[in-house]
């Protein structure tokens, strides 16, 4: 989605510019051609840095996944013996402990991501729609809603960790002491409840981004659409269903993908909430791989798991982009849809 946004627009513009009716065309400026090297020069710093910090390490990571890279070889990783696909077969052998744990962690991450992205989207969209019309205190409320987004992750998550404490936390105080909902204070940061705790923190921290993007998207919906719909007798709920939500579709396609990738790869939240070893019920994949690499010192296996993770993300993103770009070919302009509806 993102890539098409970036490249499609300049393409469209070129078509428009070189059409005979346009006065200024690239062809009329020969100096342009002589400066052909300039775009590359401008891109060079970005390219070099992405190469050094992302692409080269990624290639090395893939190479490492084929090696038996334990603590004995970490001083000079190139001397580690090749093991072929051993790391991979070990990772996907779901009957053995390593593979079983990885599969479990993967499933936990999937469930967590679906719930978190869904809730973030839902809350963010609802809040943005509620704030579409001007009312007193809207500016203040918007500022408040952006606080979770602005707070540094570790400060926010550490506060949640404090609230989830067994003996001195707010959550148990409210649920047990004040409301009497539980027989005895629960543990939130270990055991099965940790999944809930992680989800709450993740949604708290993530929904303002959805809010921000949807709010920006709402500004692009022409007011006339609502006015016309109101004239036709459509109520607020109908307007939301027939105009707002369909118009937001292109925005949502980007938003959901970005939220998915961020949530699936999130390391900071579980790491600050639980520390180096997450409880089994909240064992997100990035923590699991960190644990496999840095705590048990098997970097080859950790790399193999990372590569598998990357392949999965590529696959999901590819399918997602394919599906959304196909549905995007259906009439997307709200104006067209509106006339079709009315």
């Amino acid at each position, binding site marked *: 989605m*993102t*890539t098409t*946004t*970036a*490249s499609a*627009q300049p393409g469209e*513009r070129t078509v428009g510019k070189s059409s005979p009716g346009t006065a200024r065309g690239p062809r009329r*400026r020969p100096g342009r051609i002589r400066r052909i090297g*300039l*775009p*590359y020069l*401008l*891109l060079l710093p*970005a390219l070099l*840095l*992405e190469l*050094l*910090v*992302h692409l080269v*390490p*990624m290639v*090395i990571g893939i190479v490492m996944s084929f090696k038996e890279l334990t603590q004995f070889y970490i001083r000079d990783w190139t001397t580690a013996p090749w093991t072929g696909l051993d790391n991979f077969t070990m990772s996907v052998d779901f009957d053995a402990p390593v593979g079983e744990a990885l599969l479990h962690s993967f499933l936990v991450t999937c469930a967590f991501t679906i719930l978190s992205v869904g809730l973030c989207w839902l809350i963010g969209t609802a*809040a943005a729609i*509620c*704030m579409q*019309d001007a009312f007193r205190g809207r500016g203040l409320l918007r500022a408040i*809603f*952006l606080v979770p*987004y*602005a*707070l*540094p*992750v*570790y*400060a926010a998550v*550490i*506060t949640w960790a*404090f*609230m989830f404490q067994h003996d*001195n936390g707010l959550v*148990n105080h409210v649920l047990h002491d004040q409301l009497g909902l539980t027989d005895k204070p629960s543990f939130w940061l270990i055991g099965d409840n940790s999944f809930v705790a992680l989800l709450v923190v993740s949604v708290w921290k993530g929904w303002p981004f959805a809010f*921000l993007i949807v709010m*920006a998207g709402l500004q*692009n919906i022409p007011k006339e659409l609502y006015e016309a719909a109101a004239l036709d007798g459509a109520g*607020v709920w109908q307007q939301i269903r027939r105009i707002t939500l369909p118009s937001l579709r292109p925005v949502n396609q980007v938003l959901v993908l970005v939220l998915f990738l961020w949530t*699936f*790869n999130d*390391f*900071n939240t579980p*790491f600050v909430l639980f520390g180096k070893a997450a409880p089994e019920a909240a064992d997100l994949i*990035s923590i699991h791989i*960190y644990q496999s*690499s840095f705590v048990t010192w098997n*970097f080859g296996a*950790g*790399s193999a798991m*990372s*590569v598998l993770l*990357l392949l999965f993300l590529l696959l999901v*993103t590819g399918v997602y982009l394919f599906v959304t770009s196909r549905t995007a070919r259906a009439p997307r302009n709200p104006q067209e849809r509106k006339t079709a509806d009315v």
Partner: protein
Amino acid sequence: MAAPRSFTWTRRVFLTLLTGFVLLPVYVMVSSSLKPLEDVSSQFHWLPSNLTIRPYIDIWSTVPLAKYFLNSLIVAGAATVCSVVIAVFAAYAVSRYEFRGKRVFSVTVLSTQMFPGILFLLPLFLIYVNIGNATGIALFGSRGGLILTYLTFSLPFSIWMLIGYFDSVPRDLDEAALVDGCGPLRALFKVVVPAAIPGIVAVAVYAFMTAWGEVLFASVMTNDATRTLAVGLQGYSTQNDVYWNQIMAASLVVSVPVVAGFLLLQRYLVAGLTAGAVK
């Protein structure tokens, strides 16, 4: 448009609940930071019975918070400046020029967004150590290495957003500058950059927050001298005691600059997102 009652009431209830949810941790942070250690270690109470500002004094001596603060400021500040400058150049090239490999560049840069950080943590660590051994440039454990790493984290999103923003600046403006004899770089800085200030501010805010909040690389790639706040705050829990009141006070202190800055500049961020990301 007169909204029906059902809508106004749903809205009122929903927004109230949401405000409570959002502000709950903020309240806990503020109120607990004003309690003595005995109070935060025992049962939670909504209202502090013994108010004290002691935690705000102690945080600076329990751990070298000022040093961590300075490190975070240097790292996040430098990463932001570098990231914005580099993104401006790259986005200008993509927005204003047709060239071979443009699509490949966009795809490559943007796809780095999907890499799990854990995938290149160890290789990057090895690369930095090797560069250090070969050239004597200390990247591992230094602020420089962290700056280099962080600026690439925000770069793809920044480039993507600035391309959208630059596209929305009418081409006629900088083409007129080119006709007037400006070089392309002068046209960029005299015309395009000033017109795209909201987008650039938005990108800078994003880059700063990314760097200020990063935990994984900060915990692996720093040492005693270069530790940032993300790691430093862990120092308030010792084997015997967890100084929750100091943790809350320190969290508040490290949050105030970013939250204040963000709220001041949030208009730009919304404007930047409208023009850049949402199209």
